[in-house]
């Protein structure tokens, strides 16, 4: 009913290939955009910004980076957190060496460092695949975290080995550091995530995306039809690491405010991999859905007992939370092994043909 496509005729190839062939999709996205850009920022409390809105966006971006590599180009990676770390440390060094630099520019630049490192650790992908490649990227994970700990220049010889985000301004308002307001930070994150998402959607629909998908589905066949595997895989590593690096810089500069090397250890890599898998590999929307489930939902669940006035201890809530989120993950993967994005796609299809199923 709501999703009836009757009457929406495509009269040109251009219309047929549009990003939103169904008008309702565009309307729905528009509503979400209004929520994200206008309604949330003006109604959210400091708590909602810091524990839900900002982290969900940042995790979704990191997962999007991983999804380019794993979901589209088929190269399994366990080094996401380390590449995020490269972005964060690069951004920190850029801003402390050149304090006059605009923080947003620094965040975009720091992605390039991460992309470079990503390409280096992507070279083994030319010879090995699947789980073997996962092990090679795991090496990046261990090596880089070790480097963050041992190379004191990276954290400006700070005695505790941690990096602290300096207060920096853009156009007279604080953007990073403790003096920045959550709303400013949210808009910066939202802006960057929006730009990156548009970029990713277009990349994956275009020539590169098709090349990656061919590589993912069968690399020998891809090579036979003339795809340069080296180019395809290394570009995937570069672009994926760039996005992940930007997400890492945002993670520390727009959200955490301080970071120790072990923040970028393997649990973070796994968390992002889970977001990508539960959201749906090979989809852009899935990253956002996955991030909401993994990052946002536990926060909401933690609030529930208080909001409903159920007096249970905070530790018990935490235990219940872990159990509930765990079983939800299992539940969603059983009803739709391809992730939440696929689940949404099925729901949408059903809505389009409703009330007359085939």
């Amino acid at each position: 009913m709501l999703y009836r496509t009757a009457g929406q005729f495509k009269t040109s190839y251009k219309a047929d290939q549009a990003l939103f062939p169904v008008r309702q999709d565009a309307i729905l996205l528009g509503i979400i955009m209004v929520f994200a850009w206008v309604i949330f920022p003006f109604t959210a409390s400091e708590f909602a910004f810091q524990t839900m809105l900002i982290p969900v966006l940042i995790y979704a971006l990191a997962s999007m980076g991983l999804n380019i590599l794993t979901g589209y180009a088929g190269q399994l990676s366990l080094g996401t957190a380390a590449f995020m770390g490269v972005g964060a440390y690069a951004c920190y060094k850029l801003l402390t060496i050149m304090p006059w630099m605009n923080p947003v520019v620094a965040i975009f630049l720091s992605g390039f460092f991460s992309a470079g490192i990503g390409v280096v650790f992507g070279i083994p992908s030319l010879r090995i695949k699947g789980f073997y490649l996962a092990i090679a990227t795991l090496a990046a994970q261990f090596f880089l975290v070790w480097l963050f700990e041992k190379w004191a220049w990276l954290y400006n010889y700070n005695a505790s080995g941690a990096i602290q985000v300096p207060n920096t301004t853009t156009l007279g308002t604080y953007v990073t550091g403790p003096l920045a307001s959550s709303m400013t930070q949210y808009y910066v994150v939202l802006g960057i995530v929006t730009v990156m998402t548009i970029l990713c959607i277009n990349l994956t629909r275009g020539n590169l995306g098709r090349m990656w998908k061919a590589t993912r589905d069968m690399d020998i066949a891809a090579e036979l039809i003339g795809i340069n595997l080296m180019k395809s895989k290394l570009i995937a590593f570069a672009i994926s690491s760039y996005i992940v690096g930007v997400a890492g810089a945002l993670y520390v500069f727009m959200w955490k405010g301080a970071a120790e090397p072990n923040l970028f250890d393997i649990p973070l890599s796994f968390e992002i991999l889970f977001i990508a898998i539960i959201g749906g590999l090979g989809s852009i929307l899935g990253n956002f859905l996955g991030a909401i489930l993994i990052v946002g939902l536990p926060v909401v669940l933690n609030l529930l007992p208080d909001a409903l006035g159920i007096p249970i201890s905070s530790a018990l809530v935490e235990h219940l939370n872990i159990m509930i989120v765990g079983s939800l993950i299992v539940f969603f993967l059983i009803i739709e092994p391809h992730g939440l994005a696929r689940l949404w796609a099925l729901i949408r299809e059903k809505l389009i043909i409703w009330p007359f199923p085939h």
Partner: protein
Amino acid sequence: MKHWTKIAAAAAATALIGSAAIAEGLFAPNLSYRTGPFAATGIPLMNGQKDYMAMLNARDGGIGGAPIDFAECETGYSTQKGVECYEKTKGEAIVTQPWSTGITLQVLPKTNVDNIPILAPGYGFSPMMDGKTFQWAFNTPSGYWDGADMIVQYLESQGDLSGKKIAFLHLDHPYGKEPIPIFEQLAAEKGFEFTPIPVGLKEMQNQSAQWLQIRRMRPDNVIMWGWGAMNAGAITEAVKTKYPMDQFIGVWWSGHDADLALVGDAGKGYKSISWSFPNLDAPVMADIKKHVVDAGLSDSNETEMNGVFYARGIIISAILSEGIAAAQAEYGTAEINAEQLRWGLENINMTEERIAELGLDGMVPPFSTSCANHTGHSGGWMLEWNGTGFDKVSDHMTPNVDGYRALAAEKAAEYATANAPWPTNDACDAES
């Protein structure tokens, strides 16, 4: 996509809670960790803190007539959850107790903006002792640098240190690295050889490589700065490699009864410096038994209540309640706010008489804080494991703070520059 509505619902729920949480009394939340990898050490501390506050509520009806709402927010020692708890509680809270170096690091820069005192008793960044720079942070009654200094003093009292070899087994983490500058400074002064041996977070339970190094090096003493599973790992490994236990000294967080109970008699002679002591005969213990345990309000048990960590939890709550009481007396109101508590924490005066009055005899050394001195430098005692519990084996020791006052000021200034613009409280004089 409908998940977005969940966010909206959550935002609404938060707003609701924000207004609903204005409870009667003083809201002093604790960012507890009863879950996760460090829960074993967290639970006795949290229980001690909670039981003391529950006792005050039951016995005296709170502090100065205002009941204490001592809510816990579970972090599992995770920084992310910690910041979540901080954001959730900061609206109405008069204090934040972050309970982890990671959380302290993140929350510290925000306190100047949010105007809420951080109480980090015996942990956190040592230069926080400089109250001029760190107006909102308190690591009373002793910081890590105090601990390092007292351990070296104790070793010196056992014999000349020059030419001796001291190994420093520490967690490779901001917490473990914290005392290194002081040890290095003292090593240069006293002429001992100082070797840091880091233990990675992932190797906490498997320290065979580190102990092999210790065996080869044959140090005269091993000093440990461990936490969580690392302590038990190091103590069992030391027993296994037959390292003489009486030459093995830990910081206060490395003196957990349960870790030593694992090895029992084999651990005899192991020492830990501490600013708290479980004096089971102290009146406060009887009060807690009467008002909290017998009333069924406690989550603790007999063994745990005899331990060092439970007693430390009591002391931590006692410090907070002293701060609250000082602020109430100064401002003439029971319902103090965060700003007033900051003043109170700056004006704690724990004299011997006051300690006896509170029923904490022999559980904490006397100390006082001031505007410029946020630590108090209480000093402490050397505790020794006797196979079943800890005994005091030294007199009250006091750290030689003058030895590192300049270093603290320098580090504090560095921190302030890195976080510029950082307001300092120039009304304080530098003396403490």
